[in-house]
Every structure is written in structure tokens, then in C-alpha cells.
């Protein structure tokens, strides 16, 4: 199947469709379709905020109520320590921001292809655009929550450290950490429709396995490296390190391990997605 390769390189505009041919210009194609990405993301955001006032209220209330519950359960009843001088609710909320970003991306992305069946069956574009654009909606929700955090910090009179300027880096890591598993489950969900039932399960357990309601410093020292296999541990620690400042510290070996896990998942997710994406139209 390689007999056409030479001529193709001389005339870059010639497109050859053959079985099993990996898209040679996949990433360039993805870039060429950036406007579609932008417009699909915009569509999802517009619909989310057009349809329901409740949608916005929900984006605000969900993390807020969870924070209240966690503060009472972990902070008051279990009496776990906070990080440094930060009030317990602020610490919880700083961890909840990346967690809900993760949860929303995973939930929205995994359903995105099935919800956009009509597009996949009728038009060509790199399919990676669809789950990726649903991450944008999650980022908008995240921005709303960020305002809520600012409000809570004002209420407690807690000033952020200058490290907060580094927050965007950790937001990027959080998004990448979410996209890896999201691509994987999205692609699996096209073929096996019951994979989406896995998501509430992952999110339910993950919420308690990740240091959302408590500080990861309560995990015994000898377990911390193992604990960091959960990529959200590194992300949440990073968020707290930025927002709470002061004595909040990152456990660096664990953080590095989390980053490796994030990278592995992302690689796996993109690889599996690309391997299966050409059969999506036949399966959906």
C-alpha cells in the first residue's frame, strides 16, 4: 500500500484514502479544523447557558454544597487538619475546583460522540475535536467556580499568595489529566455503550480517593508515593500550593509521578482514540 507515497509527497494536495492508512497529517489537519473546534465549543457553551438558568445555578451550587458537607464531615467531625493557615472551607474549595473540572470533562466528553452522532455520520473532521471541545464547557464552569472561590476567600479574609499567578499551569495539567481518560472512555463508549456506566463509579470513588475533602498531607509518608499514582493527587496539591500559599507544600516526588501518570493516560487515550476513530462512523 505504499506505492502512492512518493507522488503524494510531490503533490501535497493529493489525498489518498486507503484501508489502514494512518492519517499522515493528522495534527496538521487538527490545526486546520481549529475553527470548527472553536465553533463547536462555543455552541456547547451557548446551549448550556442559554437553555437553563438552572444550569448556571447548578454550576455554582454543586461545588458549594459539596464544600459545606466536606468541611463539616472532614473538618469538624473527623477533625482533620487544614493546610497551613488556610480556613478549612477554602482548602476544600481549592481542591474541589480541579476535581469538578475533571469530573465535568470526563462526564461530558464520554457522551459527546454519541450525542454528536449526526455529525460523525455526515461530515469528516478529526473526531478528537468533539470530546476536546466539551472540555471548553467544563472550563467555563470552572471559571464560574473561580469567582465563587474568590467570594469565599473574601468572606474568610484570606489573601492568596503570589503563587496564584502560576495557577494557569496547573489548570492546563488538570485539563490534560482529564482528557487522557476522557479520550479513552469516549472511544470505548462508541463501541461498548455500557462504558458510560463506569463514569459515575469512577467519579464517586475518585472523589474520596483524591484529596478533595482533606489535605493530602494526612496520608502517611510511606504511602504518599503510591497515593500519587492517582493523577488528581498531583493536580489538587498543585492547586492548593498555588492558592493557599504559605505552608502548603507539594510533595514533589509524588507530583512528578502524577505527571508521569497523566502523560501515560494522555498517550494511551489519544492512541486508542486515533486507532478507533476511523470506524466511529460505522459504529455509531
Amino acid at each position, binding site marked *: *500500500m505504499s506505492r*502512492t507515497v512518493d507522488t503524494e509527497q510531490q*503533490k501535497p*494536495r*493529493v*489525498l*489518498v*484514502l*486507503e*484501508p*489502514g492508512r494512518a492519517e499522515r497529517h493528522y495534527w496538521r489537519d487538527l490545526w486546520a479544523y481549529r*475553527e*470548527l473546534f472553536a*465553533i*463547536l465549543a462555543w*455552541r456547547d457553551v*451557548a*446551549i448550556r447557558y*442559554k*437553555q437553563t438558568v438552572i444550569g448556571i445555578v447548578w454550576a455554582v451550587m454543586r461545588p458549594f454544597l459539596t464544600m459545606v458537607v466536606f468541611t463539616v464531615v472532614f473538618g469538624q467531625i473527623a477533625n482533620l487538619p487544614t493546610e497551613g493557615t488556610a480556613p478549612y472551607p477554602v482548602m476544600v474549595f481549592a481542591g474541589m475546583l480541579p476535581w469538578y473540572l475533571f469530573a465535568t470533562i470526563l462526564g461530558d466528553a464520554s457522551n459527546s460522540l454519541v450525542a454528536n452522532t*449526526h*455529525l*460523525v*455520520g*455526515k*461530515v*469528516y*473532521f478529526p473526531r478528537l475535536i468533539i470530546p476536546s471541545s466539551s472540555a471548553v464547557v467544563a472550563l467555563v464552569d470552572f471559571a464560574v467556580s473561580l469567582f465563587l472561590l474568590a467570594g469565599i476567600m473574601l468572606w474568610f479574609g484570606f489573601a492568596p499568595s503570589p503563587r496564584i499567578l502560576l495557577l494557569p499551569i496547573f489548570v492546563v495539567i488538570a485539563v490534560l489529566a482529564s482528557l487522557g481518560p476522557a479520550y479513552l472512555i469516549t472511544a*470505548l463508549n*462508541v*463501541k*461498548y*455503550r*455500557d*462504558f458510560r456506566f463506569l463514569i459515575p463509579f469512577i467519579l464517586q470513588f475518585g472523589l474520596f480517593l483524591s484529596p478533595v475533602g482533606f489535605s493530602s498531607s494526612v496520608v502517611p509518608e510511606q504511602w504518599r508515593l503510591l497515593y500519587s499514582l492517582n493523577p488528581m493527587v498531583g493536580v489538587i496539591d498543585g492547586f492548593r500550593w498555588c492558592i493557599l500559599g504559605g505552608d502548603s507544600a507539594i510533595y514533589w516526588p509524588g507530583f512528578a509521578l502524577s505527571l508521569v501518570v497523566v502523560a501515560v493516560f494522555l498517550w494511551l487515550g489519544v492512541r486508542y482514540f486515533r486507532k478507533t476513530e*476511523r*470506524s466511529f*462512523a*460505522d*459504529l*455509531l
Partner: protein
Amino acid sequence: MESHSVIRAERLGKRYVIGHEVNREGYKSFREVLSRAARNVTRRSVDLMRGRAIVAGDATEDFWALRNVDFDVMEGEVVGILGRNGAGKSTLLKVLSRITDPTEGSVRINGRVSSLLEVGTGFHPELSGRENIYLNGAILGMTRREIRSKFDAIVDFSGVETFLDTPVKRYSSGMSVRLAFAVAAHLEPEILIVDEVLAVGDAEFQRKCIGKMSEVARGGRTVLFVSHNMTALRSLCDRGIVLKAGSVRFDGSIDDAIGLHLADTDGAFGTVSEWTWGPDKGPRGTDLRLLRVGLSGSISPGPAFRSDEAITVSIDYDQGAAIRGMRMVLQIVTGNGDVAFSSTDQLIRTQSSQRPGRYRSQCTIPPDILNWIPYMLRVGCGIPGQQTIIPMTDVGRFNVRGPANRTAPLGGAVAPPMDWSLAGLDGEAADAHGSAVSLSG
């Protein structure tokens, strides 16, 4: 010539695996896969122990939607693709549009392709007309700058200026189709691939669309066009490719292609007079899907009928919710794609027929109306002036034979017998008056 070839398909093949157990949509549940794997392992080990050969794939079957398809399309050619349902037309267009991968062979495409496999792909009911123009344009591969520069022309063509900022869900179906086609009509690709998009909208709008399409074709662009509308094909295309059972049956002038296609479909549809669909197949719309459409004659079983017998069309459907003001429509269409007549059950509908449930709408076409030509039966339903639930859909063909003393059909879509009289005007033959001569008599 070589350098002008813009699409070259070589030994192109597309195989689908049809599962006998797997549900039809192609996806399955992970649980099912595990249980089938377990079952296969048990069966195979049993086979192995008994010394029988292990037969793989008895639960699935290969189906070649396309096989050994070869053709070349030169720059600026307008090619019509014909074939009966299931001949592989849509699969071919999907492969050419990169939606699905070929299983074997290759296609080389030289130029920017836009494919229009549906009007209004991605239209979102919650978004306004203006927003949908940008969304749909981007989905069809236009850049934002391109859309902005053509925006006024698009709006003008669609004729929905006053509703630009209204959500599309409040549009009538005619309006959204017009808007959608307007966006598509302003695509400027080097190669345009179009699938049966003219089947929507009213006659007036269809004419406008065909006009626009021939403008595109005359502009030197390469067009691949699938349609069941023979009039449109004849006026737009110079070349026709007839597909049959996944292979190229004919490739040549459009007139020959149409002739062959019509002859072909007569034979092909000449064995069934009943069409049924499984739960996930068949024409469907919001809260309604067709189950079965059947034809039966008062004398012959069909699908070849006599012109002097009554033909009963029964349409069975499943209505999932109460639909107010719905009516079922049937159309009898000639081989040229001209509608001979339409009929609806609107007048006999009552309050009680709005409720969810299964229904049969039955219509009897009286004898001595149809011409002795092949016809296509089309069925659709909707709420007049509000909503199209199922757009008019080709269901199947049937043939009408003329009376024994007539072989060649008369011109026209129908041939009802008329009352004729013949009288001599010279005086003597005055009493020959009143002898009605029926053409079909």
C-alpha cells in the same frame, strides 16, 4: 488526461460485518461481548474435544457494500450516481468524503472536497438562524471569514431575513431547510459531493436548488451527485455511473445511465409488494416510525398490477406519543420523478387517532387511474404547515400493466379513462352520438 483526473478510485471496496446476534446499530455492550466471548470459548473447546474444526465467524457475516469499484472523474465533470437503494451509493459517498475508511483499494482525490450528504447537518434548534449559519458553515468546512463575506448572500438566498435572530426551533420545516440549503449553496469547493438533498422542500424551492446546482456545475467545478430525481440528474449531469450490488454496472452518458437504471429497478422491485422494517430501521421521525407498507390489488397480488384494478396501500406505523393534527401522506411518483398525485388521510382523522399506539392508514387507489408505467410509492407524514415528521420517503416500486389491447403507455403521469364521443357533423351520421369510447376499454 492523467493530470486532470481529480478523483480516481481503484478496486475500491467497503466491507461491513453484519452480526446475526449483535444488534443492528453496530455498537454493543461490553457485557454482551464478555458473555459472547465466554460462549465462544466453551463452544470451541467442545468442538475441539470432539475433534470438529473450529469454525470462526458463524455469528457474523461479511457484507460488501462496495466491491472492485473503479472510476476516474475528470476536473469539471458533473457525474450522477444512480442505483437502487442498497446499491452502495451512500457508502461510496461516505468513503469519498472520508467519513468511513475503505476496506480495500484506494481513492486519490486531488482538490478540496466538500460533501453535502444532508441538508442542515448540525443545525441546533436552540440557536438562532444567524448562529446556525456560522455553525453549519464551519461544519461544512467554511472558514469564519468566508462565511462572513457570504453572509448576506446566504440570508438573501434563504429568504428568512426577518427571523435571523429567532431560534431555529421556531422555524417551519420549510424555513430551516431553505436556510440550510442556502449555506450549502455557498460552499466553494473544488469538488462537491451531494447526496439526495433535493428531496426536501417544496417544488418551488427545489427548482431554485437545481438552478443553483447547475450554476455550480457550470462554474467548472467537479460535482458528484446522487439523486432519485431523474429530471434533475438529466438536466445537471453529463455522465452517469450506475451502481448495482456494490459494483459499477455502467459508466457512460447520463441518458443511457438513466435508461439502464430504470430498467434495472423495474426488475429489482418487481418481486415485492410489501416493505417492513425492524425496530431500529426504516423511516422514522419524532415519536413516529413506519412499521410496514404494503400494496395489494383487488385482482393481482402485486407488485405488477392491472390498470383496471383497485390498489390498496396500507401504511402501518407506531406512534410513540400523542401528535395533534398529524396526517399520513402518500405520493405516487413516475420514473421521471414527477409526482403523479398525492393523497392524505387528513379528512378521516379523529381525536382518538391522536393517541399513541399502532395504526394502519389505508388508502385505495380506484381502478382506471394509473398509467401503465412503473411507479414509485412514497410515504411521509407531518402536521400541515407546522412540522415534517417523516419527509416523503421512497418506499418501493410497483408496475402497472395496461389493458390487453394496449401495450405502449400513454403520455403523462396518470391515464384515467375519459368519456369521449364521436359525431359526424355532416348531417347523416348524427345518431352516432353518445358512444363513449374509453381508451382503456
